[in-house]
């Protein structure tokens, strides 16, 4: 397909317009002595740093990126359609596979939507357990992000340090629910399991140790002049643009917008614990890095408080074995996932299956700004920008 085909077909939408405006910008190099030709570069779907099967069609002028067009869909599995074919409780394993590095938050967004649709009240103990799991998941997801982001920019060692700590979190998950990655650890109405004996102590042990490990990553990166050169001022995302494109999560907060669903609309146990929302104002890659590092520290705080306050009692609400949504009902429930706002919109029609399901995937929304961030940057910045958006293709393509 030719380059023109990609822009010609999309005259109506905002995104197409943005792309076209980028393409139409006057190329000052045309007036030079030599005839300058731009090169098309296929970045992905098989490339070490596209984090999955994202394909970017780049127009490059030497090293400078003139234009960038992301092509998605290589991991499309029809998850939203699959949801319609299964009863509510059978869909939880499918949500694991959306953002496959943060399964617990996906589970929570989905079961939260089901509970809202049907009107189940989750017992407090289950709410606390969910909060603990989600915050551990946030740490593990941010660790994976840091690992890959650092290795994209060329620092190899933080990758292994991050995986060392992520392994401990995965071990905790394995002890709790029997799986390490695709957790399937929540059910509509509560939690399938209680915390195992001694789990809280092992978790607290990890949390005591973890802040010193964050210092270690920061010692390797935060003040390093090469790291700063590669990230400060790269891929600047202004706050208004971020809000226009529906960017959420650390990317939005790095642009100076204090928006976090955990604070704005507290769900589960977030209303009962104290934590801060880190915000920075430059909106560049370095700031997004700082926000995520601070978020990990705050997550440690949240989990510690939850473990202290963990109430006794039931872990599962009384509910019928087969859940049925009321006729003509709908519910949208969203939570603050590691990558941004992940939400599920469910429509019920009186049967055990959802009539329609729609996933608001943060990676998909965040990916939309990549062409804007990457424009006029160098090829090396492309991987920095792509890494800092923290996309997971399972969620983008669904």
């Amino acid at each position, binding site marked *: 397909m030719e380059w023109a085909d990609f822009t010609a077909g999309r005259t109506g939408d905002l995104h197409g317009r943005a792309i076209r405006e980028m393409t139409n910008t006057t190329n000052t190099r045309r007036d030079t002595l030599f005839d300058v030709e731009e090169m098309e570069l296929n970045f992905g779907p098989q490339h070490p740093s596209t984090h999955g099967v994202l394909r970017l069609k780049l127009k490059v002028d030497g*090293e400078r990126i003139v234009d960038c067009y992301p092509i998605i869909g290589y991991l499309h599995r029809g998850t939203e359609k699959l949801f319609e074919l299964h009863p509510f409780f059978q869909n939880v394993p499918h949500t694991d596979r959306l953002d496959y590095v943060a399964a617990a938050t996906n589970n929570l967004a989905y079961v939260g939507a089901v509970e809202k649709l049907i009107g189940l009240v989750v017992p407090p103990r289950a709410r606390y357990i969910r909060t603990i799991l989600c915050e551990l998941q946030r740490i593990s997801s941010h660790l994976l992000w840091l690992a890959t982001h*650092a290795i994209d920019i060329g620092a190899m060692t933080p990758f292994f340090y991050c995986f060392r700590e992520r392994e401990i979190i995965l071990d905790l998950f394995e002890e709790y629910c029997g799986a390490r990655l695709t957790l399937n650890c929540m059910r509509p109405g509560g939690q399938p399991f209680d915390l195992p004996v001694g789990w809280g102590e092992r978790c607290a042990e990890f949390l005591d140790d973890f802040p010193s490990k964050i210092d270690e990553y920061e010692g390797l*990166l935060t003040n*390093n002049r*090469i790291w700063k050169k*590669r990230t400060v001022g790269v891929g600047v995302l202004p706050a208004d643009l971020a809000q226009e494109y529906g960017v959420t999560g650390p990317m939005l907060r790095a642009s100076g917008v204090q928006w976090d669903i955990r604070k704005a609309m507290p769900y589960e146990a977030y209303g009962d614990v104290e934590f801060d929302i880190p915000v920075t104002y430059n909106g560049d890659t370095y700031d997004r890095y700082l926000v995520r590092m601070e978020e990990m520290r705050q997550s440690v705080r949240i989990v510690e408080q939850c473990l202290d306050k963990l109430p006794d009692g039931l872990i599962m609400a009384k509910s019928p074995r087969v859940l049925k949504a009321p006729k003509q009902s709908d519910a949208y429930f969203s939570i603050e996932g590691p990558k941004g706002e992940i939400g599920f919109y469910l429509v019920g029609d009186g049967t055990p299956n959802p009539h329609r399901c729609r996933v608001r995937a943060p990676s998909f929304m965040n990916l939309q700004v990549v062409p804007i961030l990457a424009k006029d940057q160098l*090829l*090396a910045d492309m991987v920095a920008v792509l890494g800092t958006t923290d996309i997971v293709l399972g969620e983008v393509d669904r």
Partner: protein
Amino acid sequence: MQELRDILGPTLFYYAFSPAIKIAVVVFVGVLPLISYLVLAERKILGFIQVRTGPNRVGPWGLFQPIADIMKLLVKEDVIPNKAVKWAFVLAPCLVVGPAFVIFAVIPFGPSAAQTGGGLDYFITDVNIGVLFVVALATIGVYGIIIGGWSSNSKFSLLGGLRSAAQMISYEVPQGFSLVIPLLMAGTMSLQGIVGAQLEQGRWFLFAFFPFGLIAFMIYLIAGVAESNRNPFDLPEAESELVAGFHTEYTGMRFALFFLGEYANMIVISAVAVTLFLGGWARPFPNVEALSFLDASFLPAGLVGVLWFSLKLSVFLFVYIWFRGTFPRYRFDQLMDLGWKWLIPLSLVTLFAVGLWKVLLL
């Protein structure tokens, strides 16, 4: 020696100890095993830095890993892309490896026969324009990378080749300037002569004309890392950006040749740095009598020289690996920035200062 000459006769003796034969022996007996075990050492050290074990499957502590790697690379299918320019594609790896090995001809690994009072010369040949020879040959290596990147007919390779062209040409300038400073200090271009001058003056050139020797050494170190395409200047093969840069399309033994070239370059640059700035094969503080036990006089004097040389060399190589385990990668424009705006002016100023010092004060 003399007995050997009597046995072989003068002609045969001349050919047996001609530089060409010596290069072959040094390369195949010394450098090739050194490179393969340098790769193992790098993987092990990186492993330890990154809290893992490194290779440990082939033999005890993975000691036979390099042999297994070489066997694997030798029997792998050799793919030449359909649209590649064949002659250039085949030529490129040789252009990288060849010059890197030839440079070993002038590196003084140990003292000459005259200095130890008979016995072997612990170097291949002593050219009176040694430094020039090193610089000239090191320049050829870049052509291999450019040709390899261009002839693969792949966009990523091309970008890698272009990056390396710009990078290596930019960094050759400060490297060259910083090499001139020890020459000024020693007053000779022969590498063996420079070591001799350091022995004579009783100090490493690193500390001579303080702090200019140190600055020159730092410039050479940075430029050397950039010249050998290692972290944090490994832009031509930046894995996360250009897949594998200029050698994306290379497989099997041709890829191994690029690999060999890179590590041979590393060793050459370290060896030159050791010779020019760290006193070559001389022991530390050669003028301090109290440390004379470091000469290990129970061993042949030449061998002790070689030992000291290898020790200094391995410190250098370790620093290379350490850098790789620690630093992120520079961006292309920042690399040019560093080279042209900082290193070149700084090296010029240092050169000028040393020259002035030498003219006015000495």
